[in-house]
C-alpha cells in the first residue's frame, strides 16, 4: 500500500518525513548489532511474501502483511519498512522519493499498534494453551492494520485536496476485501508459527 509521488502537499510530506525519521530512530536504537541479520532476513521474507497474489473471486489481491510484520518485528518495523519501500522504489518504481516518509508512517504505524495489542494478549495468555486466543488476536491485528493504513491513506489524500473525497471513498471500499483476507491470513500464519516455531513470536 502506498501513495504515489507528486500528489501530496509540502506540509504533509514534511510531517510524514519527520514522523518516519523518529520512528526509524527508535527502531534503530533498540536494534542490537546481533539482531541486524535477523531483522533483515525476516524483512526480506515479508518483502517476498508481499509479492504473493491471493485469488479473490475473479481477480486477485496481493498481501500486505503489515500486521504480521508488526507482531514479529516490533519497533524494528520502522527501519524494516523504510528499507523495503526504498527497495520497492528502486526496483519496481513503486511509491516515490518525497512520499517515502508518509508511506513508512502509513505502513508502520498500524504495525506498531498491532505489536502492542498482540504483546499484551500474549503476556496475558502465558499460562494456559491459548492458540485460539492468540489466533483471534492475530485475526484482529491483521484486519486492524489494513483499516488503519487505509484510513491514513484516505485522510492524507483528503488533507492534500478536498476533491480527493471521491477517490478516498473508492480506496476505502476497495480495501474491504483486502481487510478480510489479511485478517484470515494473519490468523492462520500466527497459528502456524505458534505450532511450529513459537520463538519467532517471542524474539523481538
Amino acid at each position: 500500500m502506498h501513495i504515489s509521488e507528486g500528489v501530496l502537499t509540502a506540509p504533509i510530506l514534511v510531517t510524514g518525513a519527520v514522523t518516519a525519521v523518529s520512528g526509524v530512530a527508535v527502531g534503530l536504537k533498540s536494534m542490537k548489532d546481533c539482531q541486524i541479520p535477523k531483522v533483515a532476513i525476516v524483512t526480506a521474507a515479508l518483502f517476498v511474501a508481499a509479492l504473493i497474489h491471493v485469488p479473490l473471486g475473479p481477480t486477485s489481491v496481493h498481501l500486505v502483511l503489515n500486521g504480521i510484520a508488526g507482531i514479529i518485528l516490533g519497533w524494528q518495523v520502522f527501519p524494516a519498512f523504510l528499507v523495503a519501500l526504498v527497495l520497492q522504489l528502486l526496483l519496481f518504481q513503486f511509491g516515490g522519493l518525497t512520499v517515502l516518509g508518509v508511506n513508512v508512517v502509513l505502513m508502520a504505524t498500524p504495525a506498531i499498534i498491532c505489536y502492542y495489542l498482540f504483546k499484551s494478549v500474549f503476556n496475558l495468555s502465558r499460562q494456559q494453551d491459548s492458540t485460539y486466543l492468540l489466533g483471534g488476536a492475530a485475526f484482529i491485528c491483521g484486519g486492524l492494520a489494513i483499516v488503519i493504513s487505509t484510513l491514513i491513506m484516505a485522510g492524507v489524500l483528503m488533507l492534500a485536496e478536498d476533491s480527493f473525497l471521491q477517490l478516498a471513498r473508492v480506496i476505502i471500499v476497495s480495501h474491504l476485501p483486502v481487510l478480510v483476507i489479511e485478517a484470515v491470513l494473519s490468523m492462520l500464519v500466527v497459528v502456524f508459527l505458534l505450532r511450529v516455531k513459537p520463538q519467532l513470536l517471542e524474539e523481538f
Partner: protein
Amino acid sequence: MMINQEFAEGSTWVHKLDPRLKILMVVMLAIIVAVGESMPMLIQAVLLASFFIVAAKLSWKKVLKRLLVINFFIFGIWIFIPFTYPGTALFYLGPLTASYEGVIYALRITLRSNAIMLAMIALLSTSEMTSLLQAMKQLYIPEKLIYLFFFVYRYIHVIADEFSTLHNSVLNRGFKPRTNLHSYRTYAYLVGMLLIKSYDRSNRVYQAMLARGFKGKLYIRDNFSISVSDLLVFSATVVLISWFIMIEVGLIII
C-alpha cells in the same frame, strides 16, 4: 522476480557520475518538483530528467515499461479529479462536468511523478546498488540502516528462490489457488514456512559471520573520487534547479 540491474550496465558519463552527487541531484530535483506548482517549471523538469535518460543511452522501451506502474495510479486520478475539482467547466461527459482547474491539477501530478521517476531511473538505476549504499554511508545515513539495507537486498534473492521452491512443491502436489479457506490456509502456511526458514537462515548467517570474526561492523569499500566533469555536471544541475526555484517563486515569468 524482476529484480535486476540492467540499467546499471553502461559506460556513459551518467553511469560514471559519482553516486554521492547522483543521490544529491535526485533529492534536490525531487523536492522542488514535488512541491512546485508552476507548469513551465514542471515541464522543464521533465525535459531535464529525459535529458539524463537520453544521455545514459537507456532503452526508451524499457524506461516506459517502468513508468507504466506509476502512470497506472495516475490514471486513477485522471478518472476522478477533473470531475470532482471545482472550477470553470471545460467539457461535459454525460451528467459529469470536467473543470479546467481539475485537468490542470491532474496534469501537474502527472508531470511531477514522471519527472521524479525519470530522474530516479536515469540517475539511480544507472549505479550498482552497492555503490549507492557506499554513497549513502558517506552521506551520513546511519550505519545500522545501511547494514540492514545491505542484508535485505542480499537476501531478497535467496528468499525469493526459497519461496519459488516452496511454491513449486505445492503446485506439484496439485494445488490450484481458488477463493476458499483451503487455498488461504495453504498460502498462510507458505508464508509461515518462509518466515521460519528465513529466521533459521538468519541464525546460521549470524553464526557464520561470528565464525569469521564479525565485531558489529561491516567494511564497505569506499573509493569514490569526484572528477572535474562530475563537478561540472553537478554545478550545472544546481544552476538549473535554482532556475526552477526562481520560476516557481515567480522571480522569472515565462
